[in-house]
Every structure is written in C-alpha cells, then in structure tokens.
C-alpha cells in the first residue's frame, strides 16, 4: 500500500482520501460543501406534512395552512416550516420501489445503484470517500442518533470500515474522547510528548507507510479530543435550545448545526418511530412538530450565517405512507408517491416539484426514484455522477444508478 493510499484510508473515516483529480478536489474543498441528512425512520406521512390534501378522500383530519410561497400549502403540523417555505424545495413525486423497512432503509440510503455484487456505502460514507473531511481536524461523517453510539463500520460497505461513521449516541461522543479521570491536561501533554519522542526515534531510518499512518491516527485523535467542546450540549445557547425544542430531535438538529459550523462534512440525524400503522393522526400530531421547529430553525440559522449556500439539508424517510387509512386509523407503507424536502447548496428556493393525482395517491407522469435524488445530491456537491467512479478490486463502479439523471427542476 502506498503512503498516499495509506494516509487516505485512516480509520474513523478521517483520511484525506479522494477519488477526484487534485485540482477539482481543491476546488470543492474551497467551496466547503456540507450535508445534513435528517432521517425520519419508519416513514413520515406526506399527507400530514409536505402534501396536505384535506379535501380529498385520503386527506385526514388536519387542515392545511398557507406558506410563505403564494398558493402553496403545508399541513398545519408544519407551522414554522411554512414560514420559511420560500427557502426550501419540496419534491412531492418520489416514487421509490421498496415497501419494506428492512430492505427499504439500506436501498434508499445507498441510492439503489445497479447490483454489481458489492455492498454499496450509505450516502454519508460515500461522501466521506468522495470528498474527504471538510475540516481535516474532524471526521467527515458523524451520525447523531437516540440510544447508543460508537464507531459503526457497516455503513461503509465495500469502501472499507475506515469510511464508517462515528455515531454519537444521544448526541454524546464515544467515551474515549475524554481524557481519563485522574490524568491532568499537563500530564496528558507531558506523556504525549514522551510518546512523540519515542516515535521520532523509531521512525528515523525506517520508511514504511504504516509508521506515518499510525502516528497520523494519534494526531487526529488528539485533535478531536481538543475539539470535544463541539459535543458538549451544556455550551449551547439557551435561546437556541428553546427555538429548536427540547425533545431529542430538536436537540440533535441543534447539535448538527454546531457540528456543521465546526466543519463536519456530513451529518446524519436520526429520529425513530415514524412507522404509524396505528393511530397515525395522534402520532403525527406529536411527531411532525418535532421536526418542524428545529428544521425551520436550522434553515434560518444556516441562511443567516451564509452557510445555506454550501450546506445541503435533506429531510426524508425510506418511504411515505398510504393514502388509504386502515382500520386502526393508521397509514401503511407507501413508496409509490411521497414527499421529501431539500434546501441549500444549489437547491432552488421555494420550488414545489411534481404533480400527483388529485388525491395524492399516485404520481402524474414520471416520478423520481432514489437514484435520481443521488444524482442530484452528487451534482450539487460538485461530484459528477456520470464520470466519477469508485475503484474496487479492479472494477470501476458507478457512484449512482446508471439509468438516472439529476432532478433539474429542483436545482438552481
């Protein structure tokens, strides 16, 4: 393994790996493109969010409200987002294929490329590989989620564990980022100086790339330790906490903003339990506002800071929910026609894309599969999805489904 490649494959996805030509990579780096994927696991109902149709047979009990885009309505469960609708785009004609959670989640997060007999990476790992870190001191792919965290390799697929994600369980970093109890800052610095001295001596007269790579992993670990304040939610502004909401998703999206500000390339924020097979309306009434407030706050904050121009924000699930309301007042899985929201990084401001049947059940004309969305995301990030290829065991592998195109209507 060459030194360059070795440095490019440091674990924790903290390498400098990039498939792109140096000049192009430098250009993208300059632009500092970043991504925040808000993943509502289980499937948010489009009727109770982006595509309310209260007068149709499937509409359900909630009203629709005006948004900041004349003539466009969202569900009344999205009051804050309605005020910033002119800053985002909504695609109402997602038409994906898989109605199962277990296969749908990986299919959607991998972008469903044509099967080449390899396990494709999830979007965050793909971006970590294709763009590397935006801030070389920080891992390129972090995942904020309820429950446990840790280093999660499996999202990286064939790219290899080093492009996996560092998951922050309930927003907290792994325990090992903290200096051990009883070791003062001074002692930690002193013992590290001893370590460096030993390494310098060992490195003299030796040339193997493993030696540099090992030292680099410590260097990055220490840098992350030095920046652990970015994970400390006691340092967040009290007014911000109020604006984003105190429920987990609110706290986690606020934390995502902070990590984006610190320069993390890709952040995924997960919220669970959106699978409303029973009691869809009470559940939606409780859940949808939990994404409404922090999402609107995030868009406003990124916009005010001038970050929205280079930060792509995506709100989506593995599918939408059925038009038909089942006997338990629930909605089931519906990949045939559902909605997602996007903002920033070259996404049009205030565009509502796609025509559906009057009752919202089906797409009129052509819908968009996940492959189209991946082409769109890669294009917005400055990665040409037609030309860029992964190299794996001598095979060149497309980064997105060969038969799809970017969704031009949603791009500036």
């Amino acid at each position, binding site marked *: 393994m060459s030194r360059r490649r070795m440095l490019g494959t440091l*674990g924790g996805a*903290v390498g400098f790996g990039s498939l792109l030509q140096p000049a192009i990579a430098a250009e993208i780096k300059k632009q500092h493109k970043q991504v925040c994927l808000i993943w509502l696991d289980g499937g948010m109902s489009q009727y109770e969010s982006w595509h309310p149709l209260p007068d149709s047979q499937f509409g359900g009990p909630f009203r629709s409200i005006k948004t900041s885009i004349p003539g466009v309505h969202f569900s009344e469960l999205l009051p804050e987002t309605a005020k910033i609708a002119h800053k985002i785009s909504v695609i109402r004609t997602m038409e994906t294929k898989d109605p199962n959670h277990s296969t749908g989640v990986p299919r959607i997060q991998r972008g469903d490329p044509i099967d080449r007999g390899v396990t494709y990476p999830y979007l965050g790992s793909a971006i970590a590989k294709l763009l590397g870190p935006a801030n070389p001191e920080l891992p390129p792919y972090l995942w904020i989620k309820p429950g446990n965290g840790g280093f999660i390799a499996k999202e990286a697929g064939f790219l290899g564990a080093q492009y996996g994600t560092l998951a922050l369980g309930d927003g907290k970093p792994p325990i090992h980022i903290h200096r051990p109890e009883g070791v003062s800052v001074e002692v930690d610095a002193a013992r590290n100086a001893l370590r460096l001295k030993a390494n310098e001596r060992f490195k003299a007269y030796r040339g193997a790339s493993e030696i540099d790579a090992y030292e680099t992993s410590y260097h990055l670990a220490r840098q992350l330790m030095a920046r652990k304040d970015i994970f400390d939610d006691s340092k967040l502004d009290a007014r911000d906490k109020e604006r984003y909401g105190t429920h987990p998703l609110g706290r986690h999206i606020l934390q995502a903003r902070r990590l984006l500000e610190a320069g993390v390339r890709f952040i995924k924020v997960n919220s669970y339990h959106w699978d409303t097979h029973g009691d869809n309306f009470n559940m939606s009434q409780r859940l949808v506002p939990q994404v409404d407030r922090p999402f609107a706050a995030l868009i406003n904050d990124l916009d005010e800071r001038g970050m929205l121009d280079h930060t792509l924000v995506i709100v989506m699930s593995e599918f939408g929910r059925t038009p038909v309301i089942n006997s338990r007042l629930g909605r089931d899985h519906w990949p045939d026609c559902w909605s997602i929201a996007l903002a920033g990084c070259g996404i049009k401001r205030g565009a509502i894309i796609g025509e559906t049947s009057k009752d919202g059940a089906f797409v009129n004309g052509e819908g968009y599969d996940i492959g189209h969305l991946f082409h769109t995301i890669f294009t917005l990030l400055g990665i040409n999805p037609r030309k860029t290829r992964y190299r794996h065991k001598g095979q060149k592998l497309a980064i997105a489904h060969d038969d799809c195109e970017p969704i031009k209507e949603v791009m500036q």
Partner: protein
Amino acid sequence: MWRIIFIWTLLPVLSGWAAERLSQRIDKLIAAKAGGAVATRSDDSEFFRRVKLDLTGRIPSATDTRSFLQDTTSSKRAKLINRLIASDAFATHWTDRLSVMLLERQNLGKVTDEEWRTFLEKTLKGKPRWDVLAREMVGATGTGESRPAMKFLGTADHHTMTENIARLFLGMDIKCAKCHDHPSVDEWKQSHYWGLFSYLNQTKNATNSKDKRAYLVEGVATKKVDFQSVFKTEKEITGPRLPGGKEVVIPAFEKGQEFEKPAADGLPGVPKFRPRELLARDLTAKDNTYFARNGVNRIWYLMMGRGLVHPLDEMHGQNPPSHPKLMEILMREFVAHEFDVKWLVREIALSESYQRSSRLPKAAKDVKPESWRTAHPKAMTPEQLLNAVLKATGNGNWVRELKAPANAEKFDRRGYFTGTNREMPPSFEEIRALFMLTYAEPAGTPEVDFIPGLNKALFLMNDRLIQDWLKPQKGNLVERLTKLKTPEAIAEEMYLSMLARFPEKDETATVADYLKQNDKRRTAALGDLAWSLLTSTEFRLNH
C-alpha cells in the same frame, strides 16, 4: 533414538551434494532482484520479538529476552525457530490466524467456535498439511473427526461457498464473475464462477433424526447449470469445472440407481455422484497450481506481512508475483513436501530475507515493500495486541483469570464505549470482546492490510482498563518499577518488558529526566512512561 542420531550425523554429508536449503534459495532469488543494498541483519532483539510474535503471537518477557541476548551459540536463531514451531503456543496462535483468515470472524453454521478451534489446534500441534485442511473443509459432511471443519462452509449457501473457496483457496476474488466475465481481469471468466458453483449446488443442510446433529449432504445432480451474462443475450451452461481444469461429466443413472446408500435417520440417500466431494479432491490435487500457489502466498503473507502476490485474492496474470521464479520454486517445493505448513513456515523464518532489520539499508530512501529489501512492519493482529498489552504491562496473570460471578448481569459493551456503562468488564472474556470490538474488522471483512483508526488510537490512549493496568498492583510492571531505585534499572526493566530490547543511552536519560521532573508523583510518572511506550509505533508494529 538411533534414527535421530543417524539423521544428524549424516546431515553435513547430505548438504554437500543435496540441493541448498529452500531458505537460501529464497535469499538468492530476492537478492537477484533487489536493485540496491538490502537492510542489515536484524539484531537479536528485533529478531526475537518478531519471531515470537509471528510464531506464538506473544511478545517475549524481559527474562526471556535477556537470556536470548546472552546466548552466544551461533545456531541460536535456528534452534529457537524449531522450538517455537514445536510449541503449543504456535498451534494456538496459528489457530487464531487461520481462523481469522478462513472464517473472517463470522460465526455461522452449527459448529461452535470452540469445536472449530479445538480441531484446528489439534491439527496444528501435529503435522498440518494445507491440502488436507482444505480437503476437510471443502469436503466436510459433518461426519468423523474432522466434523468441525464444516464450519468453513457456514450456512452452506451455494454462492457464498463458491466465492469463499475461490478467494481463500485459489486466490481468486471472482465475485463479480457471477454476472459477467471480470471487467478488468481478462482471465477470470463467468464460466469459472459457475463451473465452481456447479460442484456446490447440490449441497444442503440436513439433521439426523437420531443424534439430532446437523450434517451437510448432497442431492442428486442431474444436469449442468445455466448462466447468462448481463451483457449477452444467450445462455451458457457448464458442469462442475475448476479454473484451468476439465469439466466433470455428470453421470446419468437409471431411476432408482442414483444412490449409494438409501435414505436413513431423516437424512436423504447418499448419491453415487457427489460433486462437492470431487471438488475437495481435485481442488487440492498436487497438479492444481492455483491451489498450491495460493497456499504459498498466504503463508508467505502471514510471515512476511504481505503476499508475493498482493492483494492476496488477486492472483492472475495482470497482477504477477513480485518474484515469479521464487513463487514457482516455493510452490513446487511446497507440493513436494506434502503441503507441510510448518516446513514452509520454518524455511521462511530461517531465511535472511525474513531476518532482515526493518531499518532501511544505508542511503536508501524509498524502498518498495515488494522488493523485500527491508523487513516489512506488520500491524499486530487484535489478538496479538491484547496479548502484548497484557504482557507488557505485566497484568496478564490476574486479568486472564477474571471470571464474571455466576448469575451476573450481561455486561453492556456498547454502553462501555458510550459512557452509560461505567462498570469495569467483569471477565477476561469481556475484556477480550472490548479489544475485538475496537481492533477487529467487521465480520466478513478480510483482515490483511493495516488500518489504523481514530477509535483504535483513542482506546489505547484513554481507555480506563489501560489506565488501570498502568497503576501498581498485583505484581505488574509498574509495581515492579516502583521497587527499582535508579533510572537505569527502571529504563532497562521497562524497555525489556515492553519493547524486548535494552534502552539506548538517550532513552535512559529521558526516563531519568522525567522522573526528576515528577519526583512528587513518582509512581504516576512511571505509569506515564509506560503509557508512552504502550502507545508508541514501535509497540504497535511487529517490525
């Protein structure tokens, strides 16, 4: 006894006219292509640590290092190699290495890890033959003494078996030839994949109704398999065929005549034609050069840190060995010595190429690893690392004895990493699991190249087990150091215990300075010094 004497007395005579030792031929062929100076011979410390790690998975103790360094016998290296290969520790360590290589940390099928390990260890204590091992694994039915070998076949999924046998026993990663000829490797055809597949597609799981145990059985093969390239419109067919081999004719039997033994005990009848059994035979046959070459390459990798062909599963014309002639000789000799694993390991270990220093030759800068001009540093495996950390810090004895109390709650491993579980792991088993979670690759991923990582660095730096092991207790290293008076004695004990060498003058001076600066917290300072060696590159690499 007379036999041993006979051989030893004749040896000098024999070597006069017999061919040179293989180890010498290795060195000649590598020298012929070196294209520059080679590194000096490793010093005794460097050699001792390396050979102990490679053959037993352990770093040496300070006492062992001292006595090896003091030994002035000229043949001490060769003697040591023989002794280590004959030791039980060799069998244990190579069980680790071969298990990780062949199972890739997957625990599939009905054979337990323990049964598998016992089987492999027993084999490795005797005279392990690569061909016999492969034959037992590929042909496993679940009967007889080699029953645990069936673990290699996992759940007996036909495609997984095809891909694993090709990759691990032929050095061919032909996964993508499932759907079409390999796009960049001209010689890997889709027909190779399906030829191998059709040896395996009759295999299924079955349970014996009497002993309730799982077995692997074969159904009756009646026809060849169809396959179609995604790039072509016409179908193709193949019967069982090995890459480079002839297609096996599937015999036609009259109805009722297909079986050698009738169905019994809930198991189906045993067919006369059993393609997987034929695969086990033909795959491992002496004339299957793909098989022998792959075996040589993998053993060479285990000793030398990379394959003569690298990556290991890319053995084809476009990725030739770094030393083709050497590969051919090794392959021929390996076959001639009945695929004797220990013999090949010994010859490699005896070579000067293995025994070189990892320091660059004088004035050389970029030395390519495949030139073998210096020793290639290997990352310790997760198992070696755990052993080494315990041994270096002197905590092995008591930590290995840790057992969770009966009816203890299950230890929350994830919580240990996230901080919600503040308990110390209660057993050695849990400690081992924490190391594996940190340092091993995910199940199903080959562990070949060194992949350092943020989380791996953070573990050695900050984990509370490590901190605990660096406090003086139970006769561990730091406790021993607190009893020593002079910086010289401290540095010597620490370097010998942790790095298997004496400290240099300036290193002793560093120890002295640090202790002086920290004279009010001397015990903690000893822990700091040990920490700095534990986290050093020299410790992490088998160099």
